[in-house]
Protein backbone atom coordinates (compact mmCIF):
# COMPACT_ATOMS: atom_id res chain seq x y z
CA UNK A 1 0.00 0.00 0.00
CA UNK A 2 2.69 2.47 1.01
CA UNK A 3 4.94 1.06 -1.70
CA UNK A 4 3.47 3.15 -4.47
CA UNK A 5 4.51 6.40 -2.83
CA UNK A 6 7.94 5.66 -1.57
CA UNK A 7 10.03 5.36 -4.71
CA UNK A 8 10.57 9.07 -5.18
CA UNK A 9 11.27 11.53 -2.40
CA UNK A 10 9.36 14.30 -4.09
CA UNK A 11 6.01 12.67 -3.61
CA UNK A 12 3.63 12.76 -0.66
CA UNK A 13 1.70 9.65 0.25
CA UNK A 14 -2.09 9.93 0.62
CA UNK A 15 -1.65 10.09 4.38
CA UNK A 16 0.66 13.11 3.92
CA UNK A 17 3.92 11.32 4.65
CA UNK A 18 7.27 11.35 2.89
CA UNK A 19 8.27 7.72 3.10
CA UNK A 20 11.83 8.09 1.86
CA UNK A 21 12.61 10.36 4.78
CA UNK A 22 11.09 7.91 7.22
CA UNK A 23 13.10 5.09 5.69
CA UNK A 24 16.22 7.20 6.04
CA UNK A 25 15.50 7.65 9.75
CA UNK A 26 14.98 3.89 10.00
CA UNK A 27 18.47 3.36 8.57
CA UNK A 28 19.86 5.70 11.19
CA UNK A 29 18.19 3.84 14.02
CA UNK A 30 20.50 0.92 13.27
CA UNK A 31 23.66 3.02 13.36
CA UNK A 32 26.09 3.51 16.24
CA UNK A 33 24.80 5.68 19.05
CA UNK A 34 25.93 9.28 19.38
CA UNK A 35 25.31 11.13 22.62
CA UNK A 36 25.65 14.84 23.35
CA UNK A 37 25.35 16.78 26.61
CA UNK A 38 25.51 20.54 27.21
CA UNK A 39 27.32 21.65 30.37
CA UNK A 40 27.79 25.14 31.78
CA UNK A 41 31.42 25.23 30.69
CA UNK A 42 31.47 22.99 27.64
CA UNK A 43 29.77 20.40 25.43
CA UNK A 44 30.50 16.66 25.41
CA UNK A 45 30.05 14.22 22.51
CA UNK A 46 30.48 10.47 22.66
CA UNK A 47 29.89 7.90 19.94
CA UNK A 48 29.83 4.14 19.54
CA UNK A 49 32.02 2.86 16.76
CA UNK A 50 30.61 0.03 14.69
CA UNK A 51 33.52 -0.49 12.32
CA UNK A 52 36.14 -2.26 14.40
CA UNK A 53 38.37 -5.26 14.15
CA UNK A 54 41.94 -6.45 14.37
CA UNK A 55 42.65 -5.89 10.69
CA UNK A 56 41.55 -2.25 10.73
CA UNK A 57 44.48 0.13 10.21
CA UNK A 58 44.05 2.88 12.79
CA UNK A 59 47.56 4.32 12.64
CA UNK A 60 46.30 7.69 11.42
CA UNK A 61 43.78 7.86 14.23
CA UNK A 62 46.46 7.20 16.84
CA UNK A 63 48.35 10.34 15.85
CA UNK A 64 45.19 12.42 15.92
CA UNK A 65 45.25 14.49 12.78
CA UNK A 66 43.34 17.68 12.11
CA UNK A 67 39.90 16.24 11.64
CA UNK A 68 39.76 13.77 14.48
CA UNK A 69 39.73 10.03 14.70
CA UNK A 70 37.48 9.68 11.74
CA UNK A 71 34.53 7.39 12.04
CA UNK A 72 31.89 9.17 14.07
CA UNK A 73 33.11 12.50 15.37
CA UNK A 74 34.54 15.22 13.14
CA UNK A 75 35.86 18.75 13.39
CA UNK A 76 33.73 21.09 11.27
CA UNK A 77 35.45 24.33 12.28
CA UNK A 78 37.55 25.65 15.17
CA UNK A 79 34.35 26.20 17.11
CA UNK A 80 32.13 23.26 16.08
CA UNK A 81 32.43 19.47 16.19
CA UNK A 82 29.86 17.01 14.92
CA UNK A 83 28.91 13.42 15.66
CA UNK A 84 27.27 11.47 12.82
CA UNK A 85 24.92 8.51 12.80
CA UNK A 86 23.84 6.73 9.66
CA UNK A 87 25.32 5.99 6.25
CA UNK A 88 29.04 6.75 6.54
CA UNK A 89 29.46 7.82 2.92
CA UNK A 90 26.53 10.26 3.14
CA UNK A 91 27.98 11.56 6.38
CA UNK A 92 31.37 12.23 4.79
CA UNK A 93 29.71 14.19 2.03
CA UNK A 94 27.80 16.32 4.56
CA UNK A 95 30.88 16.87 6.69
CA UNK A 96 32.74 18.13 3.65
CA UNK A 97 29.88 20.47 2.79
CA UNK A 98 29.74 21.76 6.35
CA UNK A 99 33.47 22.46 6.37
CA UNK A 100 33.19 24.42 3.12
CA UNK A 101 30.23 26.36 4.47
CA UNK A 102 32.19 27.26 7.60
CA UNK A 103 35.13 28.49 5.55
CA UNK A 104 32.88 30.48 3.21
CA UNK A 105 31.48 32.28 6.23
CA UNK A 106 34.98 32.92 7.54
CA UNK A 107 35.92 34.29 4.12
CA UNK A 108 33.06 36.77 4.02
CA UNK A 109 32.79 37.80 7.65
CA UNK A 110 36.21 37.06 9.13
CA UNK A 111 34.57 35.27 12.04
CA UNK A 112 33.82 31.67 13.04
CA UNK A 113 30.43 30.65 11.73
CA UNK A 114 27.78 30.78 14.48
CA UNK A 115 26.84 27.20 15.39
CA UNK A 116 23.16 27.53 14.56
CA UNK A 117 23.96 28.97 11.15
CA UNK A 118 26.14 25.97 10.30
CA UNK A 119 23.36 23.62 11.32
CA UNK A 120 20.95 25.66 9.20
CA UNK A 121 23.18 25.48 6.13
CA UNK A 122 23.32 21.71 6.33
CA UNK A 123 19.60 21.52 6.94
CA UNK A 124 18.88 23.72 3.92
CA UNK A 125 20.92 21.28 1.85
CA UNK A 126 19.16 18.24 3.30
CA UNK A 127 15.73 19.78 2.81
CA UNK A 128 16.53 20.41 -0.84
CA UNK A 129 16.99 16.69 -1.31
CA UNK A 130 13.49 16.06 -0.04
CA UNK A 131 11.76 18.47 -2.34
CA UNK A 132 13.42 18.46 -5.75
CA UNK A 133 15.98 16.63 -7.85
CA UNK A 134 14.48 13.19 -7.48
CA UNK A 135 17.49 12.08 -5.45
CA UNK A 136 17.26 10.15 -2.23
CA UNK A 137 17.74 12.01 1.05
CA UNK A 138 20.95 11.84 3.12
CA UNK A 139 20.70 8.92 5.50
CA UNK A 140 22.47 10.79 8.29
CA UNK A 141 21.57 12.47 11.56
CA UNK A 142 24.09 14.82 13.11
CA UNK A 143 24.75 16.24 16.54
CA UNK A 144 26.54 19.58 16.43
CA UNK A 145 28.45 20.74 19.51
CA UNK A 146 29.83 24.25 19.37
CA UNK A 147 30.50 27.66 20.85
CA UNK A 148 30.08 31.18 19.50
CA UNK A 149 30.25 34.59 21.18
CA UNK A 150 26.55 35.26 20.58
CA UNK A 151 24.93 32.26 22.25
CA UNK A 152 27.89 30.54 23.94
CA UNK A 153 27.73 26.71 24.21
CA UNK A 154 25.13 25.01 22.05
CA UNK A 155 24.05 21.51 21.01
CA UNK A 156 21.93 20.89 17.90
CA UNK A 157 20.47 17.81 16.25
CA UNK A 158 19.53 17.58 12.57
CA UNK A 159 17.86 14.71 10.71
CA UNK A 160 17.32 13.67 7.06
CA UNK A 161 14.19 15.77 6.71
CA UNK A 162 16.27 18.93 7.11
CA UNK A 163 14.73 19.75 10.47
CA UNK A 164 16.92 20.79 13.38
CA UNK A 165 16.49 21.70 17.02
CA UNK A 166 18.60 22.81 19.99
CA UNK A 167 19.08 20.43 22.90
CA UNK A 168 20.49 20.34 26.42
CA UNK A 169 21.13 16.62 26.10
CA UNK A 170 20.18 14.24 23.34
CA UNK A 171 20.99 11.00 21.58
CA UNK A 172 20.80 9.61 18.04
CA UNK A 173 21.33 6.17 16.50
CA UNK A 174 20.70 2.78 18.04
CA UNK A 175 19.10 2.63 21.50
CA UNK A 176 18.52 6.37 21.46
CA UNK A 177 15.22 5.94 23.27
CA UNK A 178 16.88 4.25 26.23
CA UNK A 179 19.67 6.77 26.35
CA UNK A 180 17.28 9.69 26.03
CA UNK A 181 15.24 8.56 29.04
CA UNK A 182 18.39 7.97 31.06
CA UNK A 183 19.51 11.49 30.24
CA UNK A 184 16.12 12.90 31.08
CA UNK A 185 16.36 11.45 34.57
CA UNK A 186 19.91 12.40 35.35
CA UNK A 187 20.54 15.64 33.46
CA UNK A 188 20.68 18.95 35.31
CA UNK A 189 21.17 22.33 33.64
CA UNK A 190 23.83 23.28 36.17
CA UNK A 191 26.04 20.30 35.31
CA UNK A 192 29.76 21.04 34.97
CA UNK A 193 31.90 19.63 32.18
CA UNK A 194 33.49 17.04 34.47
CA UNK A 195 30.11 15.78 35.65
CA UNK A 196 28.75 15.86 32.11
CA UNK A 197 31.63 13.65 30.98
CA UNK A 198 30.78 11.20 33.75
CA UNK A 199 27.10 11.28 32.80
CA UNK A 200 27.90 10.65 29.14
CA UNK A 201 30.22 7.74 29.87
CA UNK A 202 27.76 6.12 32.26
CA UNK A 203 24.91 6.50 29.80
CA UNK A 204 27.01 5.11 26.97
CA UNK A 205 28.01 2.08 28.99
CA UNK A 206 24.36 1.32 29.66
CA UNK A 207 23.18 1.69 26.07
CA UNK A 208 26.02 0.32 24.02
CA UNK A 209 25.87 -3.17 22.62
CA UNK A 210 29.30 -4.19 23.86
CA UNK A 211 29.84 -5.47 27.36
CA UNK A 212 32.46 -2.90 28.29
CA UNK A 213 33.80 0.42 27.09
CA UNK A 214 37.18 0.90 25.48
CA UNK A 215 38.77 3.18 22.92
CA UNK A 216 38.18 0.43 20.38
CA UNK A 217 34.43 1.02 20.46
CA UNK A 218 34.12 4.55 21.84
CA UNK A 219 34.90 7.92 20.29
CA UNK A 220 34.91 10.91 22.60
CA UNK A 221 35.18 14.67 22.20
CA UNK A 222 34.69 17.92 24.08
CA UNK A 223 34.20 21.54 23.06
CA UNK A 224 35.35 24.09 25.63
CA UNK A 225 36.64 27.63 25.81
CA UNK A 226 40.22 28.40 26.76
CA UNK A 227 40.00 30.58 29.90
CA UNK A 228 42.95 32.75 28.85
CA UNK A 229 42.50 33.29 25.14
CA UNK A 230 38.67 33.09 25.40
CA UNK A 231 38.65 31.09 22.17
CA UNK A 232 36.86 27.79 21.57
CA UNK A 233 38.90 24.59 21.86
CA UNK A 234 37.74 21.42 20.14
CA UNK A 235 39.29 18.25 21.54
CA UNK A 236 38.69 14.92 19.85
CA UNK A 237 40.27 12.38 22.17
CA UNK A 238 42.89 10.02 20.81
CA UNK A 239 42.44 6.31 21.59
CA UNK A 240 44.99 6.39 24.42
CA UNK A 241 43.27 9.44 25.91
CA UNK A 242 39.89 7.72 25.71
CA UNK A 243 41.26 4.73 27.62
CA UNK A 244 42.79 7.01 30.24
CA UNK A 245 39.47 8.82 30.64
CA UNK A 246 37.60 5.54 31.03
CA UNK A 247 40.08 4.37 33.63
CA UNK A 248 39.65 7.65 35.51
CA UNK A 249 35.89 7.15 35.65
CA UNK A 250 36.18 3.52 36.62
CA UNK A 251 34.62 2.24 33.42
CA UNK A 252 37.70 0.75 31.80
CA UNK A 253 37.45 -2.73 30.34
CA UNK A 254 38.51 -5.27 32.93
CA UNK A 255 41.43 -7.44 31.89
CA UNK A 256 40.02 -10.48 30.13
CA UNK A 257 41.11 -13.38 32.39
CA UNK A 258 41.30 -15.92 29.55
CA UNK A 259 43.76 -13.94 27.46
CA UNK A 260 46.21 -14.08 30.34
CA UNK A 261 46.21 -17.82 30.60
CA UNK A 262 48.45 -20.12 28.70
CA UNK A 263 47.74 -23.71 28.27
CA UNK A 264 50.67 -25.90 29.05
CA UNK A 265 51.18 -29.10 27.19
CA UNK A 266 49.76 -31.38 29.79
CA UNK A 267 46.47 -29.45 29.76
CA UNK A 268 46.91 -27.66 33.05
CA UNK A 269 46.12 -23.93 32.87
CA UNK A 270 48.92 -21.62 33.81
CA UNK A 271 48.20 -17.97 34.56
CA UNK A 272 50.62 -15.37 33.27
Amino acid sequence: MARRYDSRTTIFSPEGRLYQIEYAMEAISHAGTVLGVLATDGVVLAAEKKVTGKLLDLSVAKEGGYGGSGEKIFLLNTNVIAGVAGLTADANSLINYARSAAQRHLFSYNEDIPVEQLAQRLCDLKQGYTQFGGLRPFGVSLLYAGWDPHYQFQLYHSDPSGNYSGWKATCIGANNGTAQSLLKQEYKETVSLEDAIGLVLRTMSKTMDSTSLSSEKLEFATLTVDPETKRPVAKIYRPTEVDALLAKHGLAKAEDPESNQMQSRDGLLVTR
Partner: protein
Amino acid sequence: MAECSFGLIGKGYVILASDSTAARSIVKMKENEDKIKALGPNLIMATGGEPGDTIQFAEYVERNLRLYHIRHNHTLRPSSAAAWIRRTLADSLRSRNPYSVNLILGGYDHTTSTPNLYWIDYLGTMVDIPFAAHGYGAYFALSTLDRFHDPEATLEEGLETLKKCIREVEKRLIVSLGKFKVKIIDRNGMREIEL
Protein backbone atom coordinates in the same frame (compact mmCIF):
# COMPACT_ATOMS: atom_id res chain seq x y z
CA MET B 1 34.96 66.39 -3.69
CA ALA B 2 36.47 68.09 -0.67
CA GLU B 3 34.40 65.85 1.54
CA CYS B 4 35.86 65.29 4.93
CA SER B 5 35.20 62.74 7.65
CA PHE B 6 36.89 61.76 10.91
CA GLY B 7 36.60 59.01 13.44
CA LEU B 8 38.16 58.48 16.82
CA ILE B 9 37.98 56.00 19.66
CA GLY B 10 37.89 56.76 23.37
CA LYS B 11 37.08 54.92 26.57
CA GLY B 12 34.00 52.89 25.73
CA TYR B 13 32.89 55.02 22.76
CA VAL B 14 33.62 55.87 19.15
CA ILE B 15 32.90 59.27 17.54
CA LEU B 16 32.32 59.78 13.83
CA ALA B 17 32.14 63.24 12.28
CA SER B 18 31.49 64.25 8.69
CA ASP B 19 31.00 67.53 6.88
CA SER B 20 27.43 68.21 5.80
CA THR B 21 27.92 70.09 2.54
CA ALA B 22 26.28 68.80 -0.64
CA ALA B 23 27.87 70.62 -3.59
CA ARG B 24 28.31 70.19 -7.33
CA SER B 25 30.96 72.19 -9.20
CA ILE B 26 30.80 75.76 -7.86
CA VAL B 27 27.32 75.46 -6.36
CA LYS B 28 26.59 74.55 -2.73
CA MET B 29 23.19 72.85 -2.81
CA LYS B 30 22.69 71.95 0.81
CA GLU B 31 24.29 72.49 4.22
CA ASN B 32 22.83 69.76 6.41
CA GLU B 33 23.39 66.57 4.43
CA ASP B 34 23.73 63.47 6.62
CA LYS B 35 26.69 61.47 5.35
CA ILE B 36 26.87 59.10 8.30
CA LYS B 37 24.58 56.12 7.76
CA ALA B 38 23.31 53.99 10.61
CA LEU B 39 23.87 50.35 9.65
CA GLY B 40 22.30 48.91 12.75
CA PRO B 41 21.86 49.62 16.44
CA ASN B 42 25.61 49.38 17.04
CA LEU B 43 27.24 50.40 13.76
CA ILE B 44 27.60 53.64 11.79
CA MET B 45 29.39 54.41 8.54
CA ALA B 46 30.62 57.75 7.16
CA THR B 47 30.82 57.68 3.36
CA GLY B 48 32.57 59.89 0.82
CA GLY B 49 33.57 59.74 -2.83
CA GLU B 50 31.75 59.51 -6.14
CA PRO B 51 28.30 61.08 -5.83
CA GLY B 52 25.62 58.45 -6.33
CA ASP B 53 28.01 55.58 -5.59
CA THR B 54 28.13 56.74 -1.99
CA ILE B 55 24.40 56.51 -1.38
CA GLN B 56 23.98 53.39 -3.50
CA PHE B 57 26.71 51.55 -1.64
CA ALA B 58 25.63 52.76 1.79
CA GLU B 59 22.06 51.59 1.19
CA TYR B 60 23.27 48.26 -0.24
CA VAL B 61 25.34 47.65 2.87
CA GLU B 62 22.56 48.71 5.21
CA ARG B 63 19.98 46.44 3.56
CA ASN B 64 22.27 43.45 3.55
CA LEU B 65 23.22 43.87 7.19
CA ARG B 66 19.55 44.24 8.01
CA LEU B 67 18.75 41.03 6.13
CA TYR B 68 21.42 39.23 8.11
CA HIS B 69 19.90 40.53 11.33
CA ILE B 70 16.41 39.37 10.35
CA ARG B 71 17.62 35.94 9.21
CA HIS B 72 19.90 35.16 12.11
CA ASN B 73 18.39 36.99 15.05
CA HIS B 74 21.57 38.81 15.95
CA THR B 75 23.56 41.65 14.41
CA LEU B 76 26.98 41.14 12.92
CA ARG B 77 29.78 42.31 15.15
CA PRO B 78 31.59 45.44 13.86
CA SER B 79 34.67 43.39 12.92
CA SER B 80 32.61 40.92 10.90
CA ALA B 81 30.52 43.63 9.26
CA ALA B 82 33.73 45.46 8.35
CA ALA B 83 35.17 42.30 6.81
CA TRP B 84 32.01 41.83 4.73
CA ILE B 85 31.95 45.47 3.62
CA ARG B 86 35.61 45.38 2.67
CA ARG B 87 35.10 42.13 0.75
CA THR B 88 32.19 43.73 -1.15
CA LEU B 89 34.32 46.75 -2.13
CA ALA B 90 37.24 44.53 -3.14
CA ASP B 91 34.96 42.39 -5.33
CA SER B 92 33.44 45.53 -6.84
CA LEU B 93 36.90 46.78 -7.74
CA ARG B 94 37.42 43.71 -9.89
CA SER B 95 34.19 44.18 -11.79
CA ARG B 96 33.22 46.24 -14.80
CA ASN B 97 32.00 49.22 -12.83
CA PRO B 98 33.58 49.58 -9.40
CA TYR B 99 32.12 51.56 -6.53
CA SER B 100 34.27 54.58 -5.77
CA VAL B 101 33.47 55.06 -2.08
CA ASN B 102 35.65 55.75 0.94
CA LEU B 103 34.35 54.80 4.36
CA ILE B 104 34.92 55.18 8.04
CA LEU B 105 33.14 52.53 10.08
CA GLY B 106 32.50 52.90 13.78
CA GLY B 107 30.81 50.42 16.05
CA TYR B 108 30.46 48.93 19.50
CA ASP B 109 31.11 45.21 19.91
CA HIS B 110 28.84 43.89 22.65
CA THR B 111 30.56 40.49 22.80
CA THR B 112 33.86 42.10 23.86
CA SER B 113 32.47 45.40 25.23
CA THR B 114 34.89 47.47 23.17
CA PRO B 115 34.47 50.21 20.57
CA ASN B 116 35.82 49.53 17.05
CA LEU B 117 36.92 51.89 14.27
CA TYR B 118 37.82 50.93 10.69
CA TRP B 119 39.20 53.00 7.82
CA ILE B 120 38.29 51.55 4.42
CA ASP B 121 39.07 53.05 1.02
CA TYR B 122 37.59 52.40 -2.41
CA LEU B 123 40.25 49.78 -3.19
CA GLY B 124 39.15 47.63 -0.30
CA THR B 125 42.07 48.57 1.92
CA MET B 126 41.06 48.23 5.54
CA VAL B 127 42.80 49.11 8.78
CA ASP B 128 41.63 48.77 12.36
CA ILE B 129 42.86 51.97 13.99
CA PRO B 130 42.27 54.28 16.97
CA PHE B 131 41.62 57.37 14.79
CA ALA B 132 40.94 57.90 11.10
CA ALA B 133 40.17 60.51 8.46
CA HIS B 134 39.16 60.70 4.78
CA GLY B 135 39.26 63.56 2.31
CA TYR B 136 41.49 66.62 2.02
CA GLY B 137 40.80 67.42 5.64
CA ALA B 138 42.70 64.26 6.55
CA TYR B 139 45.99 65.96 5.68
CA PHE B 140 45.44 68.36 8.56
CA ALA B 141 43.39 66.32 11.00
CA LEU B 142 45.76 63.35 11.19
CA SER B 143 48.57 65.54 12.47
CA THR B 144 46.29 66.99 15.12
CA LEU B 145 45.14 63.53 16.11
CA ASP B 146 48.70 62.21 16.23
CA ARG B 147 49.44 64.91 18.77
CA PHE B 148 46.29 64.95 20.88
CA HIS B 149 44.51 61.60 20.59
CA ASP B 150 44.13 59.51 23.74
CA PRO B 151 42.41 56.12 23.42
CA GLU B 152 41.48 56.22 27.10
CA ALA B 153 40.00 59.71 26.97
CA THR B 154 36.56 60.45 28.37
CA LEU B 155 33.80 61.50 26.00
CA GLU B 156 34.27 65.18 26.83
CA GLU B 157 38.01 64.98 26.16
CA GLY B 158 37.38 63.08 22.92
CA LEU B 159 34.96 65.73 21.76
CA GLU B 160 37.51 68.43 22.55
CA THR B 161 40.06 66.61 20.36
CA LEU B 162 37.46 66.38 17.61
CA LYS B 163 36.81 70.13 17.87
CA LYS B 164 40.54 70.75 17.49
CA CYS B 165 40.52 68.75 14.24
CA ILE B 166 37.53 70.61 12.87
CA ARG B 167 39.07 73.98 13.76
CA GLU B 168 42.30 72.97 12.04
CA VAL B 169 40.47 72.02 8.85
CA GLU B 170 38.39 75.22 8.97
CA LYS B 171 41.54 77.24 9.32
CA ARG B 172 43.70 75.55 6.72
CA LEU B 173 41.51 74.03 4.00
CA ILE B 174 40.88 76.48 1.17
CA VAL B 175 37.23 75.38 0.89
CA SER B 176 34.86 76.15 3.74
CA LEU B 177 33.10 72.97 4.83
CA GLY B 178 30.59 74.47 7.21
CA LYS B 179 29.07 72.51 10.05
CA PHE B 180 30.09 68.93 10.88
CA LYS B 181 27.56 66.26 11.78
CA VAL B 182 28.74 64.27 14.80
CA LYS B 183 27.53 60.84 15.89
CA ILE B 184 28.59 58.79 18.88
CA ILE B 185 28.28 55.05 19.53
CA ASP B 186 28.75 53.45 22.90
CA ARG B 187 27.23 50.51 24.75
CA ASN B 188 23.89 52.33 24.89
CA GLY B 189 23.66 52.66 21.13
CA MET B 190 23.92 55.52 18.70
CA ARG B 191 23.20 59.20 19.21
CA GLU B 192 23.80 62.42 17.36
CA ILE B 193 25.11 65.54 19.05
CA GLU B 194 25.56 69.21 18.30
CA LEU B 195 29.10 70.40 18.83
